């Protein structure tokens, strides 16, 4: 073995993270560099591993529900919804329409909030300082609605197995509609700042290209998959709640680059507003709880249920042994699976683009590590 010094080395290994503002948490990436070019990456994760799946086996079905909020902590509502639905499916419980539409409204608001957080920080990573102030302003409105509904802003624990814990408060519909009224104009504002911005386009177009076949092979989901042009949205393909009763479009990208994923997410926010409007229209007085016993004791079986979370396919495999405690709960986190595509997306790009590519996958480390 010849002695290598870093001065004449062809390849340089650079460590990025876990303490790095652009990795959105404690992601550590080892970059193999040739000059400024990235030859390969290796993700080192697990810094935030809390053993959520192990905890599930030691809690009852109800007790475990708050824990799921702590996985994707910027989209706690959809996390809780996925878990509740999985257990409901195991029990064979049907929800009353009021509960379904309430869930959909809150879940779509959560999708907007999650995308807003993503948009603000992603733009900040790429040097656009302004959008983050605007997106946080709108996100605050959504968090206020959550707070009025269930008292919490982030880890909401908004739903219970079988329905909702709380009925809607007076003026909920009005508040939501007011948000729907103002929000599309606000999205226009973000688009004015970014969509045709030369710098933004230079930084995102043809960066982090993920071809459709690679996207499917790596099982990425959500906006990352749709940015590559694969028309697959679980709300459409395998509808849950009452998504088969509302109209919306699934925005698609063409090139599978960072810019397309940006466009997909922005369009998704507009579609979410559309869904919320229809849900508010349909929501009618009625029961908010399905027929669930006080003790949740599912039959000996297992189900896999997944929903379209803001970041992609969020699946729960719940295995029951007939007792009050789940035998096993497996969480299929979208961020974890999507992060696998980082390597293929970042090869050949510059170090500065890594920041854009990590941002465009939209990971939350609480969910990657669980």
């Amino acid at each position, binding site marked *: 073995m010849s002695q290598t010094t870093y001065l004449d080395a062809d390849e340089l290994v650079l460590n990025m993270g876990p303490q790095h503002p652009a990795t959105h948490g404690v992601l550590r990436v080892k970059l193999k560099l040739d000059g400024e070019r990235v030859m390969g990456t290796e993700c080192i994760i*697990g810094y935030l591993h809390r053993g959520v799946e192990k905890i599930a086996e030691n809690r009852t079905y109800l007790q475990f529900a708050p824990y799921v909020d702590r996985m994707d902590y910027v989209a706690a509502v959809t996390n809780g919804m996925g878990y509740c639905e999985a257990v409901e499916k195991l029990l064979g419980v049907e929800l009353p329409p009021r509960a379904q539409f309430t869930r959909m409204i809150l879940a779509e608001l959560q999708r907007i909030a999650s995308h807003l957080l993503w948009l603000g920080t992603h733009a900040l990573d790429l040097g656009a300082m302004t959008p983050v102030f605007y997106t946080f302003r709108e996100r605050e409105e959504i968090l206020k609605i959550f707070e009025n509904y269930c008292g919490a802003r982030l880890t909401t624990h908004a739903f219970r197995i079988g329905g909702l814990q709380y009925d809607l408060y007076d003026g909920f519909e009005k508040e939501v509609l007011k948000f729907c009224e103002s929000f599309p104009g606000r999205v226009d504002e973000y688009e004015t700042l970014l969509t045709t911005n030369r710098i933004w386009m230079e930084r995102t177009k043809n960066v982090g290209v993920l071809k459709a076949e690679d996207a499917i092979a790596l099982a990425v989901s959500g906006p990352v998959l749709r940015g590559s042009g694969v028309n697959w949205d679980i709300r459409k393909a395998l509808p849950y709640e009452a998504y088969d009763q509302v109209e919306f479009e699934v925005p698609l990208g063409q090139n599978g680059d960072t810019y397309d994923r940006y466009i997909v997410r922005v369009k998704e926010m507009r579609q979410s507003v559309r869904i919320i409007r229809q849900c508010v229209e349909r929501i009618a007085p009625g029961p908010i709880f399905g027929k669930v016993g006080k*003790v949740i004791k599912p039959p000996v079986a297992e189900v*896999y249920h997944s929903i379209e979370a803001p970041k992609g396919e969020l699946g729960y495999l719940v295995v029951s042994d007939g007792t009050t405690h789940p035998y096993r709960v497996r969480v299929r986190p979208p961020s974890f699976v999507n992060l696998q595509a980082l390597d293929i997306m970042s090869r050949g790009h510059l170090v500065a683009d890594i920041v854009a590519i990590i941002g465009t996958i939209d990971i939350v480390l609480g969910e990657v590590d669980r």
Partner: protein
Amino acid sequence: MADEPKLPHQPAVPGDTPAKSPVAEGGGTTSSPSAPVKSAEVGQPKAAASEGGAQPPTPVAPAKPPAAAAPPKPPAPPKPPVKAEPWTSPLLDEIKKKFPGAVVEAVTFRNQPTINLLKESLVAICEFLKSEEGGAYRYLADETAVDYPKREKRFEVFYVLYSFKANHRLRLRVAVGDDEKLPSVVSVWPAANWLEREVFDMFGIAYDGHPDLRRILLPDEWVGHPLRKDYDILRQDAAWVKANLHIESGQ
């Protein structure tokens, strides 16, 4: 969902393979033996009574043993089936024809079909399922494992597949023992790379043919596999914690 009555259930699934007995032991979607399912559903009046019944309207205090008479199954009028039923489909017949003896059992529960396979033919069947004539299951949504320490083969590994063409989900289940190696499906679905690493990390199931089988969430030097049932929730690798974090408890 099938409308079959749930108790007089015939073990119709071909049990021509020896690995059938562990399935019956409880935990998974048992289809053939009706006894364990029944006991879990109605035969536990003690547990049901001690935690209150399934009758929301009665305002009795929930922890009153005599008040609870009904078993805690969902009391919905259109009673959902409480256990898995045998699954039949042209695809299953095709698999059985192509890979005789490989399918242990095929069940469906809540419209979610699951095929139990023998691990020897796993990769070949996966390749077939991925191909066009096998239903084009090109998307491996998830791969994970469940630990049943009392079974002869203690782990069950799940594969959640999805076909864009048929808009259909399919689950595969493979039993694997503690000292056995499972063939890796990374060659079929690259997405399995990290998923299998996680299974290895959490359960200690070794894979054959995995390109990069290392721990993924826990540190490389960690001893033990936390999601095994015999790994206590408070347990940790005390030596690692002491050496790396310089504390005793990890708290």
